[in-house]
C-alpha cells in the first residue's frame, strides 16, 4: 500500500479543512475524500478553491462520540485520517478540553480499533510559546512548564497523545504538524483582524520597535505539509524516520511583525503617513490602563498587556526538519498569500 486511497478529514469544514480538501483533491490519483465535522461544507465555496462540493462526502457528528467517528471511518474506508478540528482562540477552557483533549483521545481510540494506518494531527507552533521570545525554534525546544494559555496547553496535550500512540509494529503511524500563524482564505482571525484594526484608525500605532521576527504560514502550504506527511508515512522507505515526530511548518520567510501588518493594510489601499511608535514598556503600561478603564466601563479592552507582549515578541521557527524529512517547501509566498486572502474577503461570502 503506497497511495492515499481514501482520506477522512476531521474538521474538514473549517478554515484549514477546506485547504486540506483542496490539496488532497489535487493529488493524482485523487483519493476518495471524506469530511467529518459538526457542520456541513459551506453552501457557496470561495473562488480560491477549485474542488467540486459534490465530490466530497460529508459526515456530520460529534468528535467525542466513538460511534460517530467510527461510522465515518468505516464508511469512508480511510487509510489516512487527518485531524485538524480545533476551536478558535479566545474561547474557554472547557471547550478546549472537550475538543482538543477528549476529542483527540477519541480519534486515536477509534483509529486503533478500526485499522486506520495513518493519523496526521494538526498541532500548533504555539505549544512551545509561553510569552518569551522564540528565536529560530526547532523541534528540540522544550514545552513550557507553565503554559501560555488553555488553548496551547490542550494543543500540546493532544499532540503528546498522538505521538505517544505511534505504534509501527501494529501498523499505526502518527505525526504532528505545528503550523505557525496560519492565514489565508477562510481565515477569520489574522488578516481580517488586521483589516479591522485599520478601519478603526489604529494602524497608525506601532507597539515596540518592529525588530521582532514573526512567522506567518499560508493555509495552502500548511495543508500541503499534511499531504506530504501522509505520503511519507505510507512509504516504507521513509515511514520510520517520520512517524512519531513533530514538525514545525512555516512559510520560511519570517519578517517583522508590523511590516507584515503594513503589507496587509497597503494591499487594502491603506498607508499611514505618520506612525506613532510606543516602546514596549510604554505599550504595556497603556495596556494595563486600557484594561483598567475598560473594566470600569464594562467594555472589552482592545489593548491588553497580553496582546502587547504577543505583538512585541519574536516568534519564528527553524523548519529544517520538515524540509529534510517531509520534503516540505512553501509553495505560496507571503505576498501572494495575502493577495489571495484579500481577494477571498472581497468575495463577501
Amino acid at each position: 500500500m503506497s497511495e492515499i486511497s481514501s482520506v477522512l478529514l476531521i474538521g474538514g469544514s473549517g478554515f484549514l479543512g477546506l485547504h486540506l480538501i483542496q490539496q488532497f483533491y489535487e493529488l493524482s490519483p485523487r483519493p476518495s475524500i471524506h469530511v467529518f465535522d459538526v457542520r456541513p461544507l459551506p453552501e457557496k465555496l470561495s473562488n480560491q478553491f477549485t474542488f467540486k462540493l459534490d465530490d466530497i462526502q460529508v459526515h456530520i457528528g460529534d468528535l467525542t462520540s466513538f460511534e460517530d467517528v467510527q461510522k465515518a471511518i468505516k464508511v469512508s474506508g480511510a487509510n489516512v485520517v487527518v485531524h485538524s478540528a480545533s476551536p478558535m482562540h479566545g474561547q474557554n477552557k472547557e471547550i478546549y478540553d472537550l475538543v482538543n483533549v477528549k476529542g483527540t483521545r477519541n480519534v486515536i481510540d477509534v483509529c486503533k480499533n478500526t485499522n486506520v494506518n495513518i493519523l496526521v494531527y494538526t498541532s500548533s507552533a504555539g505549544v512551545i510559546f509561553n510569552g518569551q521570545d522564540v528565536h529560530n525554534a526547532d523541534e528540540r525546544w522544550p514545552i513550557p512548564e507553565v503554559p501560555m494559555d488553555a488553548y496551547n496547553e490542550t494543543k500540546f496535550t493532544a499532540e503528546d497523545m498522538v505521538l505517544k500512540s505511534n505504534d509501527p509494529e501494529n501498523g499505526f503511524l502518527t505525526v504532528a504538524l505545528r503550523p505557525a500563524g496560519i492565514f489565508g482564505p477562510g481565515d477569520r482571525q489574522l488578516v481580517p483582524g488586521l483589516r479591522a484594526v485599520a478601519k478603526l484608525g489604529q494602524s497608525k500605532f506601532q507597539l515596540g520597535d518592529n525588530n521582532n521576527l514573526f512567522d506567518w504560514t499560508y493555509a495552502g502550504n500548511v495543508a500541503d505539509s499534511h499531504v506530504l506527511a501522509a505520503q511519507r508515512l505510507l512509504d516504507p522507505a521513509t515511514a520510520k524516520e517520520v512517524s512519531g515526530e513533530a514538525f514545525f511548518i512555516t512559510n520560511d520567510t519570517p519578517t517583522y511583525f508590523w511590516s507584515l501588518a503594513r503589507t496587509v493594510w497597503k494591499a487594502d489601499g491603506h498607508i499611514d503617513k505618520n506612525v506613532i511608535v510606543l516602546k514596549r514598556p510604554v505599550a504595556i503600561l497603556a495596556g494595563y490602563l486600557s484594561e483598567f478603564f475598560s473594566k470600569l466601563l464594562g467594555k472589552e479592552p482592545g489593548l491588553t498587556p497580553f496582546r502587547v507582549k504577543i505583538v512585541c515578541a519574536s516568534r519564528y521557527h527553524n523548519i529544517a526538519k520538515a524540509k529534510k524529512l517531509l520534503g516540505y517547501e512553501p509553495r505560496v509566498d507571503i505576498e501572494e498569500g495575502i493577495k489571495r486572502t484579500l481577494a477571498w474577503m472581497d468575495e463577501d461570502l
Partner: protein
Amino acid sequence: MGKVTDWAFHPLELKSAIILKCLRQPLFPLAESSLSVTKKRCYELLNLTSRSFAAVIKELHPELRDVIMIFYLVLRALDTIEDDMTLDTKLKMNLLREFDQKLDLQEWSFDGNGPDEKDRAVLVDFNYILYEYHALKPEYQKVIKEVTKEMGNGMADYIIDENFNLNGVETIKDYDKYCHYVAGLVGVGLTQLIVIAGFAPKSLYEDEKDAELPLYESMGLFLQKTNIIRDYSEDLDDGRSFWPKEIWSKYSSTKLSSFREPDQTQKGVECINDLVLNALGHVEDVLKYLSCIHEQSTFQFCAIPQVMAIATLALVFNNPKVLHGNVKIRKGTTCYLILHSRTLSGCVNIFEYYLRDIRKRLPVSDPNYLKINIQAAKIDKLIETMYPDDNLPKGLKPLDTELYSKVKERTKYDEAMEPIQTSEESKFFSIFLALLVVVVLPLLS
C-alpha cells in the same frame, strides 16, 4: 558645511578619527626603510594608484602583504589598459588577452598609454612589478596569473560586445556576470591566496568553487553593485550605464537617464531601492565568508570594504540625491567603521545597524516593501544562528552547524582584539581628560 563643524556634529566619528590616526597600532607595520629598490618602487606605485587601499595592504601579515600588493598592481595595470580610450582597439585587445603571458617574462613594460591616463606609471614601471612577482612563491604566482588571464579575456569580451556597449547591462544575470569580471574575480583570487597562506580553511575555496554563487563571489559582487548604484550620475555623465535593464525598465518606460527628470524622481528612487534589494541578497554570504577568516590582519583587509559597502548602501537607499550627483559616506564614518570592524561581532553589529536604518526609512508605498523586509529578516535570522546563545531556552545547546563552528573559532580571535580596543579607548579618555584640564583650568584662574 566646513570640516570642523562637520566633525563637531558627529563627536563619535571625531573620536574614531583621533583613535585611528594617533592611537591605533598597525598589526604588522611595514618597515619602508629596509625595502629593496624594486619593492620600494612597487609600494610607491601602490600609493600612487590608491592611497586608502595602500594603507590597508601595508598592514597585512608579511606572508600576504607583498602577494596582495603585486596582485593589486597587476590588476591595476590591466585596468589601465582597459580604461585608456586613446589606445587602438586591436592593440588593446591583444594586450588584454595576452597580459597573463607578460607575467612569464623577466622584463616587460609599456609606455603606449595616453599622457593623461591616470595610472600609466604602473605600466611604464612594470619591470619592477615583474621582478617582485617572480620573487613570490610559485603557488601565489599561479593564482595571480590565472585571474589575470580570465579578467583580461573578460575585459576584452566586453570591449567587442556591441550590445553591451550600445545598451548597457540587460538582465540581472548579465549584471552578475559583469560584476563577476570586474570584482568577483578579485574575490576568487584573494580567496585562493588567503587559503594558500593558511589564513582560512581550504573549504572556503574548495567547497565553494563549483557552487552557482560561491561565497567569495558574493564578496566582490556586493562591493561592485554598491558602487554601481552609487555612481549612477557619474556613469551617465561618462556615457556609461551599468544598472540592469531588467530592473530599471520596471520604473522607466523610456531610458535610464529619464530618472534625472524632476517628475521621475519617485520612480528613480524606487529603482534605487530595488537595486539595493538585489545587492542585499549577497549579505548572508559576506557574513559567512568573514566567519571563515582567522588571521586578524587578513580579516580586517576583507571586512573593511564590506562594512563600507553596507554603509554606502544605506546612504544611497531611498536617496534622490543619487540621481543627480555624488554621494559619499563621511570621513569620520569611515574611521568609525574601520575601528569597529576588527571583530566579526563588530562587523555583524555594523551590518545590523545599517539594515535597521534602511528598514526605518523604507516607505510602505515602496513596491518592494515586503521583499526588503523579508531580505533583512533573512539576514537577521542568519545572525541569530551565528550567535544563538542568548536566545535559547535553558539547557538547550545551539545547533552545531558548520557556520556556528566557524563563528566560535572566529570568536577566539575577536576576544584577542578586545584588550587592544579597550586600551585605545582608555588612552583616548586620558588624553581627552588632560586636554579638558588644560582648556578649563585657565578659565578658572
